[in-house]
């Protein structure tokens, strides 16, 4: 019997009405790079049990790493201390789940520490081969886990998942300052190219951020890099969390059916794409993933729901439950335009290119004010110089509304292809 079912049975004997058990058991191996040297190698075994228990519409949420049978009584007692939630209806019933390919790699499961150390040495060598004085830091991580979700209504899903992730930061110091850049790659599969391309990219980009200059305050067209687009889409999707909408904690409330962006903006969410970073056959409650249209030609179609929020709103569950009852989007796929980034940029007499910008809007008002630490001034269609000490300000809803063009070329984050985006007019405060 699986660990999840064993825990489920122990809890059902305590006469709890409904129980859901999520377990993640596995290992993580990580090489840590600091100051362009291998600093440490780490092996971690993890064994997370996340349990939701319900009785008389009262809910308890529990996290354990070591399961002991005496915890069942503790869970019952703590759950009974909660207050009934009249909006709680039921955990989901079991549904047919179709497998999703590409989430597990036997090669990654078998990877040894020695291999990771060898790859990390190669990454450092590559970076120092480009700029010998580069200060490289970051990590190379492989993980393998068995994820299981079971509930007392018969949901039973389990699957193995592997991940490879490399994140690097390069800093190049000069007398009067530093140029730095950060980037990452992540996949369910073993990707030989990561160790080749990523160190070169971060070092070259860090070089490009030496000798920054101030930019004048004003309104500029802003082009987002694919990494910035990826971050923007995640931020946008978070603002569509149905729980936050229901609790009036999001600036995107009451917008279904409304025009929130121009016609060129169509956004789909699909948790079933093979090999996708956020793919799995089902959500954290065991409800099968499906492709949904979030925004169609600029009109908002839906919020992201789990079983609780969907029931409360009387709409179909979009299957976006995260483990433990929260809500999170899956793979976000944005419509693409007809022109490449270079053509879009070449039209700009003056503009800003943001390599990394995270808008971080106020959750309630949508206002934001963020630094532009990794950005370039564009003049006459060309990259002119990296900019220093500037900030971008405005309202996030305006940013979405002002997306004027989306490029045809994109960065292939697995199942989350991220194009360049041109935002018509953004308030930039010069340094």
């Amino acid at each position, binding site marked *: 019997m699986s660990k999840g079912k064993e825990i489920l049975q122990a809890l059902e004997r305590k006469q709890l009405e409904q129980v859901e058990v999520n377990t993640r058991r596995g290992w993580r191996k990580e090489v840590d790079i600091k100051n362009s040297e291998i600093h440490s190698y780490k092996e971690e075994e993890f064994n997370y049990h996340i349990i939701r228990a319900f009785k008389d519409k009262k809910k308890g*949420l529990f996290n354990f790493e070591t399961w002991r049978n005496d915890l069942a009584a503790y869970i019952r007692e703590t759950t009974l201390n909660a207050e009934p939630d009249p909006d709680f209806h039921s955990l989901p019933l079991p549904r047919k789940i179709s497998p999703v390919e590409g989430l597990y790699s036997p090669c990654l499961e078998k990877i040894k520490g020695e291999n990771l150390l060898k790859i990390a040495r190669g990454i450092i060598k590559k970076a120092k081969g480009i700029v010998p004085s580069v200060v490289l830091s970051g990590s190379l991580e492989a993980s393998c886990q068995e994820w299981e979700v079971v509930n007392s209504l018969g949901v039973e899903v389990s699957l193995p998942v592997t991940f490879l992730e490399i994140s690097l930061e390069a800093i190049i110091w000069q007398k009067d300052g530093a140029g730095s850049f950060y980037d990452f790659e992540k996949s369910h599969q073993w990707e030989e190219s990561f160790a080749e391309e990523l160190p070169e990219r971060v070092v070259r980009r860090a070089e490009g951020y030496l000798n920054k200059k101030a930019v004048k305050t004003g309104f500029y067209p802003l082009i987002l890099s694919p990494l910035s687009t990826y971050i923007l889409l995640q931020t946008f999707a978070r603002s569509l969390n149905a729980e936050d909408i229901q609790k*009036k904690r999001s600036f995107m409330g009451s917008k279904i059916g409304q025009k929130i962006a121009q016609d060129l903006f169509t956004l789909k969410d699909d948790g079933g794409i093979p090999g996708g970073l956020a793919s799995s056959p089902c959500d954290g409650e065991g409800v099968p993933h499906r492709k949904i249209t979030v925004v169609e030609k600029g009109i908002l179609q839906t919020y992201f729901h789990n079983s609780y929020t969907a029931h409360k709103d009387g709409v179909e569950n979009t299957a976006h439950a995260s483990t433990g009852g929260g809500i999170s989007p899956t793979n976000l796929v944005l419509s693409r335009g007809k022109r490449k980034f270079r053509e879009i940029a070449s039209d700009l007499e003056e503009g800003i290119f943001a390599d990394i910008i995270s808008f971080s809007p106020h959750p309630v008002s949508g206002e934001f004010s963020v630094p532009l630490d990794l950005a370039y001034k564009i003049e006459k269609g060309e990259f002119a110089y990296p900019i220093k000490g500037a900030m971008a300000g405005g309202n996030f809803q305006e940013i979405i509304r002002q997306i004027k063009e989306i490029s045809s070329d994109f960065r292939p984050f697995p199942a989350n292809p991220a194009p360049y985006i041109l935002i018509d007019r953004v308030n930039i405060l010069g340094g």
Partner: protein
Amino acid sequence: MLDLFEELVSSSRIKFGEVRWEETHTLSLVIEDGRIESVNSAIRSGIAMRVLKKGGWSFASLTNGGREQIKRLWKNLESTGELLPGNSRIFSLSPVRETKRHAVKEDFRRINFKEKSETLKNLEGAARKRKGIVHTRLVYGESWLKETVINSLGFRVEQELPRIRVFLNVVAEKDGLKQSSYKSRAALGGWEIVRELREESFPLPVADRAVELLDASPPPSGMFKVIISPQVAGILAHEALGHNLEGDHIIHGQSLLKDKTGERIGSECITLVDDATYPAAYGSYYFDSEGVPAQKKTLVESGKVCGFLHSLETAALMEAYPTGNGRAQDYHHLPLVRMSNTLFSPGECSVEELMDMVGEGILVEELGSGGYVSPESGQFMFNIDSSWWVEKGKKKKLLRNVSLSGFTLETLFKVKACSRAHTLSESGGTCGKEGQGVPVDDGGPFMFVEGMLVGGREK
């Protein structure tokens, strides 16, 4: 099991070995709009082991394991250590063998749930007494950590740290405009921390502020004279300056202060301390995660860098003394150099004198959510919920949604005076670094800064 740990770390095949055992009980309650929204509880225990053999660290963590499994894992660590040449070393500190348990007046584990929830609901409900409040959310968290560290230097320390944090967020709305405000109280201690919270000093001021912000003006944009409150001084102390004084950032070339020992990095008004012994503060402890006793350290004195924060490793590499700042989030992580309670020291002015110095400018009061700091460039940005436009040294109009930004060193040179009045924020928070979060706090005096870049929407 402790005898086994002592046996393992005394292996002659390694330069240094350490075993850390931890057990944590946590409980959190979320109360929204008068109803207990969720009850979350976690019990976690596990073992962290690390070995230094040839100059690189090998580390393992596990949650379950008998003696044989632990021995097997330790043996693996020793063999992996062979593959890790490097420059890491350890400061050979005299052994510490001590046990400390933080004394509490009321053990929160013994307070029954009904009493806890009623007390917290009363606090949360008080915020809704104010007209215009449309949403209230209180998050209560308690944790009780037991930690034992044993190492090959002969250390055997044990500590128990109970911590509490109460966070209240309110949203006010008028004519479609929404504004929010928050406050938190965090400390090392027992249930007495919650019992001492009063309506008039905790929920009501938060609610009043959110309602007032509905009629506040959007801020102007540009460079202004600014007075920052102790709360904002604290975030500057921690984020903009403190991270740059962490020994590992210095060694690894990630700090803008890497070549600044003994140099002037700010005006004479700038003195910065990190104090892990601050009584009952959220970021305080008795020993760090390497077993080194907690200390109070002066890092910047009268504008000059006079010290850095250290772990056993960075102290050895920088030929300094360990400061007890090697902290790990939990047994799944290696210790990193981390701050505890970081504060700017007070000056000699009254707040009124600072206001007179400003004349026309902005008094920045309450922090909002979100912010950003680039350690190597020193660029920072903080969101501020509420501020005042100041004219002729007096508060003139309330401003909302201000952002402050600047470069750390430029800003520190522009600090012209500090107030005698100074406080620890007592808000507590979790500081993130390399994927690890640890409890911290910060604070300082009111500080007059001659020019800071203020972001806003008013042209």
